[in-house]
């Protein structure tokens, strides 16, 4: 049962053309995961629609002159689209958690701060480009790639540094100990970034300009029946970038030699070390990849919100912690990082539908945590990606 994660299932007896097609690169690493993702999104959207229609049938006229059915037609498309774009961001962040958790079995509380650092670095890089005056000359795609790329690299390196300084010396300590340093690091990073911004800009709470990039602001109108929804370019960038990152990550973990090393370390650190795998290197790589995903996600989502504030990340930590938690335990087999996108459904349901607003949202969160408890208590014997 556990061997199939290590070696890709290659059964010579079943070596039919059909099987070969299934195992071919585009199918395994692109079609299969993307297909899974589409199914999840469609499913989540479907459930949401169903619930709203049900509600509308139950409560025909909540306020005078407002017919719920009409409202659903008007509001739902926009809700679903914004839910998808946010869901992708969360999934990128949650993947960082999952990666680190899978290898070290510990919750990297500092991950949300890496998310924050990624957004700050992206803005700073962009500011530099703007200062030099190149921003109008650069091709939009090149610009986005440069900014997101630099954010990813630097936050990846930061994650590696954090691991080296704060987690590695404590790898054999009781489990509480690295958890507490992680909290410490996350607090430290928040104020450290603020201090740097305070010194360099004398501004404690930055509102980052997006530069004069009108092509990033012009929305694309999409029509659903009678309703027109303005889809932001940034939302499309988010989805595209997330899909690309997820495809690369899936290939990296499941298809490359390094990925196999990481999986080996996650299963049994000692044995992996005895087998000649450089455990420290693998862990560093894991942190790099996780940090890069978090940083990239951070940068992209800031592009949409236009607002960078070191403090705000605390919330995103909780959000993605929950969604990450929810996801982690559904990942049982190969390629299941795509299941992270179950989160879309959750995010969609919880944040968009307004079904669980206010008090109920708190209770709901609590009960959801309780519902995943059974999974929590029996961590999967093998870590599936």
């Amino acid at each position: 049962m556990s061997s199939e994660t290590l070696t890709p299932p290659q059964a010579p007896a079943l070596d039919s053309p059909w099987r070969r097609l299934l195992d071919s690169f585009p199918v395994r690493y692109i079609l299969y995961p993307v297909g899974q993702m589409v199914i999840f999104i469609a499913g989540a959207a479907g459930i949401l629609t169903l619930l709203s229609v049900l509600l509308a049938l139950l409560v025909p006229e909540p306020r005078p002159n407002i017919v719920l059915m009409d409202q659903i037609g008007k509001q739902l498309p926009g809700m679903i689209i914004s839910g998808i774009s946010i869901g992708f961001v969360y999934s990128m962040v949650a993947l960082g958690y999952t990666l680190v958790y899978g290898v070290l079995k510990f919750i990297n509380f500092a991950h949300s701060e890496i998310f924050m650092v990624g957004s700050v670095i992206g803005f700073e890089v962009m500011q530099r480009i703007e200062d030099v005056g190149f921003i109008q000359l650069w091709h939009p795609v090149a610009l986005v790639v440069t900014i997101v790329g630099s954010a990813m690299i630097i936050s990846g390196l930061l994650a590696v540094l954090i691991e080296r300084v704060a987690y590695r010396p404590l790898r054999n300590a009781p489990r509480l100990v690295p958890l507490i340093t992680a909290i410490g690091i996350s607090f430290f990073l928040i104020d450290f970034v603020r201090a740097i911004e305070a010194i360099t800009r004398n501004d404690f709470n930055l509102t980052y300009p997006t530069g004069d990039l009108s092509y990033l602001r012009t929305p694309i109108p999409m029509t659903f029946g009678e309703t027109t929804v303005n889809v932001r370019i940034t939302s499309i960038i988010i989805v595209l970038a997330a899909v690309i990152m997820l495809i690369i990550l899936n290939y990296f973990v499941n298809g490359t030699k390094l990925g196999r090393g990481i999986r080996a370390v996650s299963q049994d650190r000692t044995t992996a070390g005895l087998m000649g795998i450089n455990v420290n290197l693998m862990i560093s790589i894991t942190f790099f990849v996780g940090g890069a995903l978090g940083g990239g996600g951070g940068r992209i989502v800031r592009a949409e919100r236009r607002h960078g504030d070191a403090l705000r990340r605390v919330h995103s930590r909780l959000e993605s912690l929950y969604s990450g938690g929810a996801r982690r335990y559904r990942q049982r087999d190969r390629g299941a990082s795509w299941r992270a996108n179950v989160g879309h459904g959750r995010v969609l349901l919880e944040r968009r539908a307004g079904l669980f607003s206010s008090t109920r949202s708190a209770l709901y969160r609590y009960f959801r945590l309780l519902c995943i408890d059974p999974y929590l208590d029996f961590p999967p014997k093998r870590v599936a990606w």
Partner: protein
Amino acid sequence: MKISRKLFVLVLVVAMGLMLSATLVNAQDGTVIRIASQSPLSGGQSVVGTAIRNGTELAVMQLAGPLTELGYTVEFVPYDDQATADVGVSNAQLIVNDPAILAVVGHYNSGVAIPSSEVYNDNDLVMVSPANTGVNITDRGYATVNRICGRDDAQGAAGAQFAATLDGVESVYVLHDTTTYGQGVADFFSAEAEAQGLTVLGFEGTEETANFEGIIQPIIALEPDLVYFGGIYDRGGILISQLRTAGYTGVFLGPDGMDSSEFANIAGEAAIGTYYTTTGAPVTVFPEAAQFVEDYTAEFEMDPQPYAAQSYDVTGIIITAITQLIEENGTLPTRAEVAAAVRATTEYQGITGNYTFDDNGDPEMASYYIISVDSSDPALWGSNTILSTQMIPSPLAAMAMMEEMMPEATPGS
């Protein structure tokens, strides 16, 4: 045990050394008067909060002359309330326990000012606010709580009356940030809007800070002609920019919480064409404030934000009151005396107007402005167009005026 003993001796030796050095310094006997400010110096509302702090500091530097001549040192102590009531109250506890502090300038948020002023009031410490418009600030009738700005009942109503005069505005959607201030002003707005014959399509509170998508979709589906946001610029700016990207084309109106160049900075292009009501006009309106703007810019290397000049005047009022007391009595006044003297202020000629407090601590006359945002450039915030200016007396002053005019028809009889 071994370690703890070692540690203990170490602590002991270090402590004794420090102790000695501290006692050796001869504490000179001076008379020090401190004026504290409380405003958000960190977080999303720090732009205006810092302006309140800086305005107060500038006033202490420039106006403390008479007190220095009398042999007193005037010091300024800024506190950061983080726009959070809990922090404001904790700071208030620290402030009231410093006997040298005789007055507080602040706050920015009514929701912070009200619980904090309970603490001040218990300790007879006077608070004068340059920016709190919430009605309950002064309506509690405390002897220690004053303000020099307008009130939300007048401001919300002025906003609604303005909305009714706009062409094609028949329906409004009212959103607020659930704070004392935001909800309060939104309440007054929607009440007056209904009185003016506008349809209020929705009245909703949200604690969202960054992503208003879930709120925007229903708003757009209801197609209001005007969206009113009772809240502060750090959320209002994001709200309007997200509203516009989502395709909203109607009018956007906000209270004085929108009054900060940061609104333009956050909202960008979306800020252009929005309206806000305020009780503190841009400093460019006041001819006497020219010198202040110059000094402020030179001292802090930034343009004065709204309420900086008002804070300057508040501090002036406080310093004048304390100076009078010392000249009369010759001794350092108690907090209760300072509070009474501040309340008795009549016709204080400040750089932003002429202030007289009524019995509740409201200024007898307050100005209300309706301003439209012309540019997305934060540097040009001060030159936004003032569409209308109204002088509205405070409720007590209005009542007194009524009595004067119609002595036979005394209200409440």
